[in-house]
């Protein structure tokens, strides 16, 4: 859940839309694969630690 601070300083939780317009549905469904980002994500060796 993303956080947003409005102009009065109040903190709001922002969630993605739960109802889409037909236009928004088309945008989602027709979205191309971001090959460059995916390839970079797959080939980068992240050194993740937990402690």
């Amino acid at each position, binding site marked *: 859940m993303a956080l947003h601070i409005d102009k009065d300083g109040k903190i709001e939780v922002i969630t993605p839309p739960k109802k889409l317009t037909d236009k928004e549905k088309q945008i*989602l469904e027709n979205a191309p694969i*971001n090959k460059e*980002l995916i390839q970079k994500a*797959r080939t*980068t060796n992240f050194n*993740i*630690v937990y402690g």
Partner: protein
Amino acid sequence: MDNNIKIIQCDSKNINSYRVRLLQSFSYHTDLNRSTRERTLLEETIKLIQKKKTVLYILQKEDKYLGAVTLSASSIDDTPVVQIDFLFVDYEYRKVIIEEIDDTVSNYLITFAMSRAELVQQTIGVKYLALYPDAQSETLINHYKNMEFLQLNKEWLFVKVD
């Protein structure tokens, strides 16, 4: 991978060990209002981590925290997504190419988020990586568009997970 670079995973179990250092070690914006805003968002994000609503990943170079990103499960309409809840870059490292990762902190953390989304997709299914640009900043929106994020509506950007 340079051994001086690592990503520390923080969830509800270990966030308290990092809380103070997280808040104190980052450099914030030089403008007082923006600095206060950034720190407040980080404090609130830590509360969400404590409540198990998101998980934080801190990018560290040697002993310096460069930035952080938090990820959670969400949905757009009825479609599961991995959501970037919060992405923060230390003020001194904004737009700076870090030699060891050959990238900016922001781009590296976005790439990391995509790698996590792919991992989640293999386990429980997810279709998109989504984010809400902080303060709906045009600069940020354009930055994400340059990374080929698509604009769903005036508030949300997304990229399809393969």
